[in-house]
């Protein structure tokens, strides 16, 4: 029988309507020594208001440099069950879909070798198995990989890509987020399992600008579905919305950020050339409006949390890219982006920070994307900029051409 701890502070968190993580830990603690000591240790933290975990150590499985995060307790003599309490990251299936058989198999393996505690899921997307010992890591890996599962990313590597539910269950998805996520994960297996980059590199894929996976804020490479052309309108459904008390003028037309809509005589009109595809109208009138037919994605780069010189949202780099199987165009541009970052990045420098330090021009030049007004909110304001010789040469050539034709080209 695992050791029992009195946990008056944690017991308090078993009351109330929201599901209790303490009850989860207790379920495991009733039959597992590691989980029992995890519970005791956490009660101690709640008492003393400090954590008792040391920095991660280097542990892992043969041939891989990541996927397992070493975790050791700083007071193992008091809580021997969590002396080692490593995390195993299992690469989730696209969109977090499972069969119950697959989940039960994962649970059985984890009960055999670990604490029984999981995170469904980790912040990056992996299935997280919380708490095991160094000596069983190879066994865990063999059990999972022989059944078709692999480890996720950790350290200075490609991290496990993740995606929204996409075309599996959403009418707004402009791209096949699930297949693209799967294909990119396969494409970068080596980079995912063997950390060789300056720092982490996260990919998140959202089917539309609603961004249910927070790609724009939480991924070095944010791939966000969008479209070109006209929003499809079903005027009969528009009338139904109006008839049923939905205020089309106030809640859709007046809230459109570009003012490109009008609603007169029961007909909704959109000036699509001024639409910025923000998704407000489509998300409010799901039956009446749908994204246009020419679908693709915008690739944005650079977002990250505050460490170390401030948080960043991703910047538009490729305004529109076709996203169709076998996704060669996307794979190529992502690979070029990581190559450039790997060339210039210093240790622990994310790609967004390198673009700031080295310059957007170097980055765009390398990946072969021209400068476009869609990439900036506004042009620079101060009169300091670089010219390369070729820039002046091309201006001079243009001017010479103008002299000949008598027509200016700005």
């Amino acid at each position: 029988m695992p050791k029992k701890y009195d946990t008056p502070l944690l017991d308090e968190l078993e009351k109330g309507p929201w599901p209790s993580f303490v009850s989860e830990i207790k379920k495991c603690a009733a039959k597992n020594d590691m989980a029992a000591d995890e519970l005791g240790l956490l009660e101690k933290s709640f008492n003393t208001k400090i954590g008792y975990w040391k920095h991660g150590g280097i542990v892992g499985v043969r041939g891989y440099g990541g996927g397992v995060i070493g975790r050791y307790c700083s007071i193992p003599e008091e809580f021997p069950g969590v002396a080692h309490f490593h995390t195993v990251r299992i690469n989730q299936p696209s969109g977090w879909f499972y069969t119950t058989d697959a989940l039960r198999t994962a649970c059985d393996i984890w009960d055999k070798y670990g604490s029984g505690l999981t995170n469904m899921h980790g912040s990056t997307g992996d299935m997280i198995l919380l708490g095991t010992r160094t000596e069983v890591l190879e066994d865990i890996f063999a059990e999972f990989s022989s059944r078709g599962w692999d480890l996720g990313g950790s350290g200075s590597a490609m991290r496990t890509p993740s995606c929204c539910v996409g075309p599996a269950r959403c009418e707004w998805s402009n791209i096949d987020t699930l297949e693209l996520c799967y294909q990119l994960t396969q494409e970068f297996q080596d980079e995912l399992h063997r950390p060789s980059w300056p720092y982490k590199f996260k990919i998140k894929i959202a089917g539309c600008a609603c961004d249910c996976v927070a790609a724009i804020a939480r991924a070095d490479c944010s791939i966000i579905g969008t479209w070109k052309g006209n929003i499809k309108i079903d005027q009969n459904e528009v009338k139904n919305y109006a008839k049923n008390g939905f205020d089309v003028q106030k809640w859709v037309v007046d809230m459109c950020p570009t003012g490109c809509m009008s609603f007169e005589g029961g007909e909704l009109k959109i000036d699509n050339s001024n639409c910025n595809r923000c998704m407000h109208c489509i998300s409010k009138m799901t039956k009446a409006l749908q994204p246009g037919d020419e679908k693709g994605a915008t690739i944005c780069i650079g977002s990250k949390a505050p460490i170390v010189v401030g948080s960043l949202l991703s910047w538009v780099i490729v305004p529109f890219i076709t996203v169709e199987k076998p996704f060669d165009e996307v794979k190529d541009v992502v690979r070029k982006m990581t190559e450039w970052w790997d060339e210039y990045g210093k240790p622990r420098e994310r790609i967004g920070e390198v673009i700031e330090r080295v310059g957007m021009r170097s980055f765009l030049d390398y990946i072969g994307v021209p400068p476009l007004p869609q990439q900036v909110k506004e042009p620079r304001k101060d009169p300091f900029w670089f010219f390369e010789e070729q820039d002046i040469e091309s201006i001079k050539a243009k001017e010479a051409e103008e002299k000949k034709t008598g027509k200016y080209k700005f």
Partner: protein
Amino acid sequence: MSAPQRKTDIGPPHYEQFLPPVIKKNYGDWKYHEQLAPGVMVHVANSGDKIFSVRVGSPRILATDSIRDACAIADKYCDGYLRFTSRNNIEFLLSDESKVAPLKEELKNKGYAIGGIGYRVSNPVHTQGWVHCHSACTDASGLVKSMMDELYEYFAEKELPNKVRLAVACCVNMCGAVHCSDIAIVAVHTKIPQVDAAAFKNMCELPTTIASCPTGAISPDPATKSIKIKQEKCMYCGNCFTVCPAIPIKDPDRDGVAIVVGGKVGSLRSDPKFSKLVIPYISNEPPRWPKAVAAIKHILEVYAKDAKKFERVGEWIERIGWEKFFDLTDIEFTFQHIDDFTFARDTFRTASTFKW
């Protein structure tokens, strides 16, 4: 018995084998969706097929036995399929409408929290905290549990002007999306790290440690073969501790939490936004963090009362102005609110058109 033969670099299993038949059939061919009740929605395909999703909150930390319980329910009602969401909910997926009501009944009886869809508080994303992280300055799960017990009606039932995304990060590394959430908690240190000079020599690299500081507060200390930290330059980010365990920064009496608001990730109506600081420090008060929870509830309720339909927290604040936000919420404005870090100059007001 020895373990089976390992394989490497196979990647995750292909998702297709986990998709319910109705999804496989209508993949990429959905027409619209509607919310039927809190936590329940239906997606209708162009073929006329429907899929019903029933969403339940989870504490993210799940015991294998709880996963098995959810599996048993999915076997009974959903032909053995289920999914998780990007915010750690479990979604039961049904193609048979007649099973939705009995499923909800069973979920309620078993204590599952149904909700989180639509203009409500959704499941908070959060980090590991004291449960499992070396750099935590609070417990994320404890905060989330305390907060959600108090806000439960906004998850399960009551509507708000728009969705409200909550998040908790147990340190400034922010493994959760705190920096772009409607209302969020980030735990902070408030004291400079203590240098253990003897341990430094064995555990840390001098150049790496110096380079880790974003404010240039760290310099070499040749006398002790270690480092010095300039008190007036240190902003307690803890990045030096991440690269050098010999300069611990955790302090039980001084670690606490801050509250940030107004962020979002979607592009609807307005661009994605960062969350901004509104309360710089509240002491850690486990097990229930009553003051932090009260502050979050207070901000949420002022928003619910004052915002226009479809305005997210950040959009509401930008419309009324931050000065008005501090006025309406009666939150004290302090030196901590005025930025003095990387992007500070963009936050200073450059027009006399403010409100009193």
